[in-house]
């Protein structure tokens, strides 16, 4: 396990785990609204001095616990920063609009769609990506369970599913099958691997619990 240093947030109510960004962590579907609010508050108080852009800015992301320096325009999403600027391609760009979950990462302990988070907004928070899960050649229990239960075919949704499952299990270590079906409904697969994914998540929960006890 590599998550001992993650910030721990209070667990969400059991059985309700729609993406964190909907609760206001990222920008997501609330992007327009956030902009309007920003303008309103700007009239009330002078803007903060740390404005960046429109050109590329130097930023530092903390990825799997390690600082990574890069230069990106403020409009670059966390997903595009990972894929195009850092070369971490486990997160996939599929819908690019916060619907499918293929780009799921864990940001400050919350699962988010990295296509709906700006890279500049992800600074100062630990970003867990799938590249940080395995230790050497040893798969993370969630990844291993996806292999064992064939929760994958073409595999393009798999990285996102594995991260969503990891985030879900961090918050719900003892899920029922119904919890799994509800908690993982923010990720889409086209090949139709859901039967394997369901079993994989339940199995990973059992194995991870065993590891913690031992």
């Amino acid at each position, binding site marked *: 396990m590599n998550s001992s240093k993650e910030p721990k947030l209070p667990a969400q109510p059991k059985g309700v785990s729609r993406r964190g960004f909907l609760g206001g962590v990222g920008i997501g579907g609330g992007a327009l609204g956030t902009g309007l609010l920003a303008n309103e508050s700007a009239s009330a108080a002078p803007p903060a001095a740390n404005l960046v852009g429109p050109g590329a800015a130097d930023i530092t992301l903390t990825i799997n616990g390690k600082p990574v320096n890069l230069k990106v*325009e403020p*409009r*670059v999403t966390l997903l*595009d920063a990972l*894929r*195009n600027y850092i*070369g971490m*391609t*486990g*997160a*996939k*760009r*599929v*819908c*690019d*609009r916060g*619907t*499918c979950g*293929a780009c799921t990462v864990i940001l400050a302990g919350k699962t988010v769609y990295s296509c709906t988070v700006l890279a500049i907004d992800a600074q100062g928070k630990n970003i867990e*990506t*799938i*590249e940080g*899960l*395995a230790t050497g050649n040893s*798969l*993370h229990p969630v*990844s*291993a369970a*996806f*292999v*064992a239960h*064939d*929760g*994958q*075919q*073409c*595999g*393009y*949704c*798999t*990285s996102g599913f*594995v991260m969503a499952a990891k985030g879900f299990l961090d918050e719900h270590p003892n899920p029922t099958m119904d919890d*799994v*079906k*509800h908690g*993982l*409904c*923010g*990720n*889409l*697969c*086209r*090949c*139709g*691997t*859901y*039967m*394997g*994914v*369901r079993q994989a998540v339940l199995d990973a929960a059992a194995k991870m619990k065993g590891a913690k006890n031992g």
Partner: protein
Amino acid sequence: MASTPDYSWPPMDQRKVIGKPIKRLDGPQKASGRAKYTSDLKPQGLLFAAYMGSPHAHARITKIDTSDAEKTPGVKAVHIINPEGTEIQWEGMEVAAVAATTEEIANDAMRKIKVEYEVLPHFVQEADLSKAGARAKAGGERVTGDPDQAFKDAEVTSDGQYGIPVINHCCLEPHGAVVQWQGDQVHVFPSTQYISGTAPQLAPNIKVPVTNIHAHMDYIGGGFGSKFSPGKWAEVCAFLSQKAGGAPVKVFLDRRMEQLIPGNRPSAFAKIKLGGKKDGTITAWQSDAWGTGGFAGGNSPPLPYVVDRIPNTRLTYTGVSVNCGPNQAWRAPNNQQACYLTCSALEDFAAKAGMDPIDVFDKNFSYAPDARVEIYRFQLHKAAELAEWSKLWHPRGKGAAGTVKRGLGVAFGAWAGGGHASQCLTTINLDGSVTVELGSQDLGTGTRTIITQVAAETLGLPMSAIKLNIGDNSYPNSGASGGSSTVGGVSSSTRKSTMNALAKLYEVVAPSLGTDADHLEAVNGHIQVKGTPAKSLTWAAACKKIAGGGKISEMGENVQRNPGGLNSQGAAGVQIADVSVDTETGVVRVNRYVAVQDCGLVVNPWLAQSQIHGGIIMGISTALFEERIMDAQTGRMLNPDMEFYKLAGIDDVGDIVVHLDIREENDKRGIIGLGEPCAIAICAAMGNAVANAIGVRVPNVPLTPDRVLTALEGRNA
């Protein structure tokens, strides 16, 4: 000299690797995010391309000005795909593309390309044939027997209208490529179902000899029939690379373009009238069908589906041209449509006759091809047993009281699935290492795993001893992965190639074992005298005796016309949907979905089951959610995304029960592909289950709440 090897599969009870539920070999790569798909590639100096399509469904390009785009810092190449004067026939049809040092710059520059259009009248909705006018092209009428007399004599007649819409492949990895054109050599990294076909298809379009095009792909994020050709994007990518002085360029369609242009499944609608006897025997069929596959029009699904020996039939088909993107093959092309139209009509006939559809289907399976009649009947009753039909089924609309209604529906499918043409090269080296090479690809179906299983079985080695190379056009040609043809093709060529190589190795080692090559076998990592482990050499010791170039390299080929019993075709299946419909909200939920699937020799039952689950889940998604929605006013697609173009999620698909009919008599048929046959019947079974639940037919899929409520209110009675 050894005689020609006997390539036939080892008997079921003697197999050590084939037929075992081996986990997919590339599973760890995928589940750890390490698998590199083409869209993940970022070679040194990569340029990102933006790909521009027309906003209009029908227009003529009158002016294109790329000067501002070209002046944008960071832009390395601009390419006009369709020049001034081109008549655009669908929204998203390509206009121009830009390559730049970052994706952001490429997108900015693309917005600076000024295109003027003369907008022309469009037509985008084919569901109402009466509005199609000149866009509809009626084919001739086909008649068998005497349908007029048969309908006059019929004791029961039923009428219905049914529709299955255009849907999108919605591959998670969009269509695209990375191409580097250096000097006279072109390196192509496609996202393709046909790596061996990439160069021959691309060569004429970019006017480069086939031998100068090098194609490579390790992983593909979905194809489902839409990625057989390298596509216009690969060609455009090549030209951008050439213009940019040989830098590698990446083109991947954004999700909107992905939903608009690289393919879709054609629609099919039909008015169908059936006539028959009170005992459920159908004697007459009349269908007037129409549909579209895009601007080019449409092709009739094969009606009546499977039960195509109904004695008296009259059929017409009208293809409709629309200003929408062109169709591509979609997992079991035209079969889902034919199945939906046919099985819906059969169920309506059963309801009209007051009969149990299981009895009606059973009776009318006599119209299926002779070889399949009894297979279908067996499957029908097996599926009914697994679905608890006798306990749960009720006459249409006569279920228990309450607002949530449960219903069952049945449908059938059929697909050929014979092995495609495939060549394989096996090399056994002096150091005992083995490589197996094919110009094939693994779409997520498990192709890597099954090839390795076949090689390991043949050579008597563990799977880990086999190094498999696929995904490159420098390897021997193998067919496109589509139509359930891959497993039969690659397994057969691998079997032959590995046996040919082994025969050479036998010749090399026979003298040391004091026998001749015909008396040797490869078992448990040894070459031994047949049945005599005491007279053996380890694999490594045997390979050390290889002289000459220090290796044995032998080809093997699957010839489609003569598969030699290694593979064959023809897999049938019967499926039953068990649904609950909330009559207040119109929401349809799957309780359980049962599939009884005929098969041949199954190389890997674990992966076969995954594939059948996948076909069914994809089918449930199409039955409940998927539809390309076109706007008549603007000619544009209203849901070119994944938010309003809906796919089923993990909680939408119920429980799936698969009965894979692995038996010795089926095993003897050789390998038969399973990707298609399992994916055909779902819309029909779901539609029939909803009709059974709520007592009225919902004519068109997807079975959305608005359609269910509309049907309940009798508005399209």
